[in-house]
């Protein structure tokens, strides 16, 4: 079967996104030979159509807002307008610099063979690309995800679009409907509002960012209301019709909303169709690849990482899983990843950040009477006052036990999640954090204050 131009590797990786390239880089460090197969661009969704471009837009949005509100800080400035060509070239510049860096890392490794082209699993240990077969002692499936739609909701890329289209829009629409109040939906709603768009979010679940702690959702809704971002929660979508100037969306109950365009942000589905996974006997569930906690599929030596594995769809989860799988294959026996310990940040304004369990989940797990919470209001935090932001740091702990959840909302709180991540994953007790008085005046002081309070010794707050 082996043809002259076929090749064998320690690992063959199908997909060069966050999960795939992290696997490749770590494996190469461990001196394993790798074939990394990518049909689009190395870096995948996150770098080209996800994390990076959205955060560039959000930063441009922050700048627009700060300019608009600069007088509150004594700075006289006039916002002339948002120039989408300029925004896009800024965004593309960021992507291309990071893309170059990533290409350098992959191409600079003698252990990685980068294969450009669409691959298909043709045997449990073999991926074929353009007629050439790449055989691995191990195979890692990392083909990522795509923007889903709903039945009867057709994406035309013009008036009914997904994040892929929204990221390359060459104009600022006058109005937009965002279908879906999850992470991607609220981020786009936030950007557009800052750019001057009249935005309405439609969400079927009873609250925005429903995966977050309920208090975070409430606070985000309050903040969005203040920003005049419209939203309708608990309202399933019924249909969309084209109008002369855009779209008309009908929601449960018959209410309609009109706008220039409709962004469909109802989640991402696994990109696994027609890739040979089922044919080779990989157990799947609704398109997702099932694995055990060591990321092994049911087929020996076939692993899966990233968005195709049920769970959080986050780039750094892909990184962590990729590193894990490389180390597993190398025999390093890495520790199993605690999914709840993966930090979650939503970069809208205000930002949301969390790690560990929500209050509800903690009560379910430990019993309602065993769970204590503390909510430190950013009103008492000097730096937050300086930024003129509101919000909180909420801690969830087990009585006489460690902190099992941290939930934050407010401008820039995403950067505080690193500390919270250590606290959760290292099972720190409030008193252990409280002992270390935080730098004044920072926002991370709020995290310190919350722990002081929960440890029974509040400094700038009441117990």
């Amino acid at each position, binding site marked *: 079967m082996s043809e002259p131009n076929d090749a064998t590797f320690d690992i063959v990786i199908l997909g060069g996104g966050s999960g795939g390239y992290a696997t490749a880089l770590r494996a190469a460090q461990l001196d394993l030979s790798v074939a990394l197969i990518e049909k689009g661009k190395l870096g995948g969704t996150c770098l080209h159509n996800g994390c990076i471009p959205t955060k560039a837009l959000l930063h441009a949005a922050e700048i627009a807002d700060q300019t608009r509100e600069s007088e509150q800080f004594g700075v006289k400035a006039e916002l002339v307008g948002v120039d989408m060509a300029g925004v896009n070239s800024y965004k593309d510049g960021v992507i291309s610099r990071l893309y170059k860096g990533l290409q350098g890392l992959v191409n600079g490794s003698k252990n990685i063979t980068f294969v450009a082209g669409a691959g298909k699993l043709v045997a449990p240990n073999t991926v074929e690309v353009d007629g050439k077969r790449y055989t691995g002692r191990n195979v890692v499936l990392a083909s990522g995800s795509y923007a889903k739609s709903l039945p009867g909701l057709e994406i035309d890329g013009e008036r009914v679009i997904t994040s892929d289209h929204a990221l390359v829009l060459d104009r600022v629409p006058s109005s937009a409907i965002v279908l879906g109040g999850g992470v991607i939906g609220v981020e786009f709603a936030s950007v557009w509002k800052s750019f001057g768009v009249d935005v309405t979010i439609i969400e079927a679940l009873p609250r925005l960012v429903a995966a977050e702690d309920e208090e975070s959702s409430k606070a985000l809704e309050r903040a969005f209301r203040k920003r005049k971002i419209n939203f309708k929660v608990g309202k399933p979508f019924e249909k969309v019709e084209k109008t002369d100037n855009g779209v008309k969306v009908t929601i449960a109950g018959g209410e309609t909303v009109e706008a220039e365009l409709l962004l469909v942000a109802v989640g991402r589905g696994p990109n696994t169709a027609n890739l040979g996974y089922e044919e080779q006997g990989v157990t799947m569930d609704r398109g997702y690849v099932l694995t055990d906690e060591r990321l092994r599929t049911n087929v020996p030596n076939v692993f899966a990482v990233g968005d195709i594995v049920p769970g959080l769809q986050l780039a750094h989860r892909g990184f962590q899983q990729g590193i894990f799988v490389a180390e597993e294959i190398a025999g390093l026996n890495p*520790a199993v990843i605690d999914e709840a310990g993966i930090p979650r940040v939503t970069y809208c304004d205000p930002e949301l950040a969390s790690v560990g369990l929500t209050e509800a989940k903690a009560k379910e797990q430990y019993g309602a009477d065993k769970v204590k919470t503390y909510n430190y209001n950013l009103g008492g935090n000097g730096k937050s006052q300086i930024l003129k932001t509101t919000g909180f740091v909420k801690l969830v702990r087990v009585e*006489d*036990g*460690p902190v099992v959840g941290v939930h934050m909302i407010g401008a820039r709180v995403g950067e505080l999640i690193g500390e919270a991540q*250590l*606290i959760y*994953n*290292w*099972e*720190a*007790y409030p*008193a*252990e954090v409280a*002992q270390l008085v935080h730098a004044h005046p920072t926002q991370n002081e709020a995290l310190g204050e919350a722990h002081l309070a929960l*440890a029974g010794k509040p400094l700038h707050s009441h117990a």
Partner: protein
Amino acid sequence: VPTQAAAPAAPVVAPAPAVAAAPATVPTQNGRATAGGAVLAKPPVRKLARDLGVDLTALTGSGPLGSITREDVQRAAAGVAAEPTPV
């Protein structure tokens, strides 16, 4: 306004020698002996123990104030791993 004479008698008063004789045997609130009965180990060491499947409460610490060190955990883990592990 002022004081309840019965206020918690401000304790300790041995005029401390300038270089305080470090009370080497009294556990302090140093993140080692934490309120709430946490085991005597710094948080990252506790995480290491969890990753390696070591029960901290079963160990005797060899570190300062009887705290459990990484070495204690790794030694215990090695003991565990000596048993046949299914691969």
